[in-house]
């Protein structure tokens, strides 16, 4: 609560220096930055040490889906937004559609080749650039090696194997479950991404909405099947109750992105050495497809007085080796910068994961994530409706496939009500 109060006072005085640029007035320019990820402040501190003429002032805000995005949007609307914000790729279209972002093409174009191409695509529309990529979220399966041994299962290669393993675990111990169901749009989106489906597309200046596509339906039916047999739980992932269940040996694995690794190791230090990471289970044997969950860009919010300096910092934060190393260590990111993916920090064994170099798995996953996935312009609404439906399905009200079809309809309706063109 205290931090919230101090944030409010920080954001209340966001009027930055009025000198035209970093070099002109001789006075250092101050650029404000709002982020939700833990550890961004460390990169800011590194920058401030080496760049006296552009001072970056960092404020920690809540994660996007629990109010952080609303906070930024409100600040933009009230015309007192910071210069920089951290926004997930999934919500960028949302921010662009509400006119909350500055087009930074003229300052950012030169940095294009420093990033993995699909992350750059995710941060731009056509040739207009709206953000500087920070990280990606390649997916894999985290699992408890000791418990897998106990129940005599090996990391499942296919989703069929996964279902069989879920059956085996739960039969052996009625209080133990292999994993939890997808909780929200980003879980289901990542699983759809792996299965080769797409939720959105743009053609002839119209949006295509295909949330209820065959691949998503396949994923939805698969998880509903496990839910009907009561072989999976529907606990929210990575929260207090989830950590407790993992601690008690009641949950054995988690299919999630690379950034879950530090969350697990920080919250469950006593389980050090009992974890490993395996590639995601596949829909057919021999495939290597992976999904991507999350990843974000640093954006310049509407009304920023110093877009050039702001972009300069954002590019540095995502590409400077010291900064990226710090982000890998403290934030648990997997870098979007090609140079970052070569750093020793993402290529070393981890004691927590029993000496495994987990980044090998994530590197392969990143390489096997299909490009061309597009997020829609009303993701806040999609996420809200999907989360609601999936939570209820988990509690036995309605089903996951029904949620998918109803979110398809509510999304088309929401887009049309704003006057967006939705085509077939």
């Amino acid at each position, binding site marked *: 609560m205290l931090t919230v109060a101090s944030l409010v006072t920080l954001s209340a005085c966001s009027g930055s220096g009025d000198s035209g640029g970093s070099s002109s007035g001789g006075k250092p320019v101050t650029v404000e930055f709002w982020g939700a990820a833990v550890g961004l402040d460390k990169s800011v501190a590194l920058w401030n040490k080496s760049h006296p003429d552009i001072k970056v002032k960092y404020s920690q805000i809540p994660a996007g889906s629990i109010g952080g995005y609303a906070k930024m949007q409100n600040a933009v609307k009230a015309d007192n937004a910071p210069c920089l914000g951290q926004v997930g790729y999934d919500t960028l279209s949302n921010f*662009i559609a509400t006119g909350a972002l500055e087009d930074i093409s003229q300052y950012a174009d030169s940095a294009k080749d420093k990033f993995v191409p699909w992350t750059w695509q995710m941060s731009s529309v056509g040739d207009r650039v709206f953000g500087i990529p920070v990280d990606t979220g390649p997916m894999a399966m985290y699992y408890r090696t000791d418990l897998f041994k106990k129940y005599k299962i090996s990391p499942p290669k296919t989703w069929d194997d996964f279902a069989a393993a879920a059956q085996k675990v739960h039969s052996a111990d009625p209080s133990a479950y292999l994993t939890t169901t997808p909780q929200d749009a980003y879980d289901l989106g990542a699983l759809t991404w792996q299965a080769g489906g797409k939720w959105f597309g743009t053609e002839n200046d119209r949006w295509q909405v295909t949330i209820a596509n065959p691949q998503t339906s396949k994923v939805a039916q698969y998880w509903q099947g496990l839910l009907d047999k009561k072989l999976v739980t529907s606990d929210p992932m990575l929260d207090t109750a989830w950590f407790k269940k993992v601690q008690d040996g009641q949950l054995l694995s988690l299919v999630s992105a690379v950034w879950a690794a530090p969350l697990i190791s920080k919250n469950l230090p006593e389980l050090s050495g009992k974890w490993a990471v395996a590639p995601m289970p596949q829909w057919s044997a021999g495939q290597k497809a992976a999904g991507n969950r999350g990843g974000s860009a640093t954006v310049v919010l509407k009304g920023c007085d110093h877009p050039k300096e702001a972009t300069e910092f954002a590019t540095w934060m995502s590409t400077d080796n010291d900064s990226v190393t710090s982000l890998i260590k403290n934030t648990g990111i997997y870098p979007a910068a090609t140079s970052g993916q070569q750093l020793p920090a993402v290529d070393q064994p981890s004691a927590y994961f029993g000496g495994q170099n987990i980044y090998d798995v994530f590197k392969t996953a990143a390489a096997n994530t299909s490009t061309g996935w597009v997020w829609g312009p009303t993701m806040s609404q999609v996420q809200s409706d999907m*989360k609601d439906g999936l*939570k209820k399905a988990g509690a036995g009200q309605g089903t996951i496939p029904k949620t998918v079809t109803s979110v398809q309809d509510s999304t088309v309706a929401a887009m049309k009500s704003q*006057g967006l063109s939705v085509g077939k």
Partner: protein
Amino acid sequence: MATRTPGDALAHPIAGSAAKRVPGRGHTRSAVLFLAPFGLLFTAMLLAPIGYAVYQSFFRTRRSGLGLGPSTTVFAGFDNYVTALHDSRFMSSFLRVFTLGIVQVPVMLGLALLLALLLDSRGAVFKKFFRQIYFLPYALPGVIAAIMWSFLYAPSVSPFTAALRHIGLEVNFLSDDLVLASIGNMMTWAWTGFNMLIIYSALQAIPGELTEAAVMDGCSGWRVAWHVKIPAVRPALILTTVFSIIGTAQLFNEPAVLSQVAPTVSPTYTPILATQQSADINNYNYAATQSVILALLTFVLSFGFLKFTQRKGTFA
């Protein structure tokens, strides 16, 4: 300047009338001077935001194509209101809160009245201690209390669930059937003490002669309470009811925190949550519309209750 404070005049109406003066022009000027700070703040902090919300509710944002160009704001008339009245999720949130209020408010105020009467009774011991204990939950910040309750309710960590399991009962406080009752319990826990204090203060103000006379006439403690004390605190009961109606209509903290752990608490569980969600998905005009509808309904309910109680003979 008179050295008299306004409070004196209220406490001694006779003295007040003796000191009555004919207001002159100088008085009007000083009255305006004294009222100006209030007037300014009242306008800036209350009237202007209300006006702005009403104004916003008559507009709509339009985009075109892919929505990546600038958007325009167009006059929408009552369209937003029509949408809200047809919005089944928004409407059912009202019904939910109404159902909760009908049960929870009387239970809570009954409990508050009972506790106040017990504290006020002759036989009560450790009055100060109990008064503070009852009032304690109100002193806790609402969100902190809600987070605490969410741990007490969440099936995997709840001590209650664990204790009940020991005696063979499987109770999930966050299940669809129980979650509303669980929220009601949180509200009762937080607000009973506050309401008790208001009623208790009113009990303190009853002249001793009244209760003594009743006792002399042979009334038992319970009958004194029923025939003398409760009628005397009627205004306090009406006041606390109006407060509770307004508070319940704006129910936010408890469901907002529980939504993190309870699958059935949706983002549109209560009218304020639904409004907040509209703002979250950048639909500010619709959020303004929902706020106006909620404010109107709250006004109708609380004002209607006041009128209803005043109509019933004795004025409160």
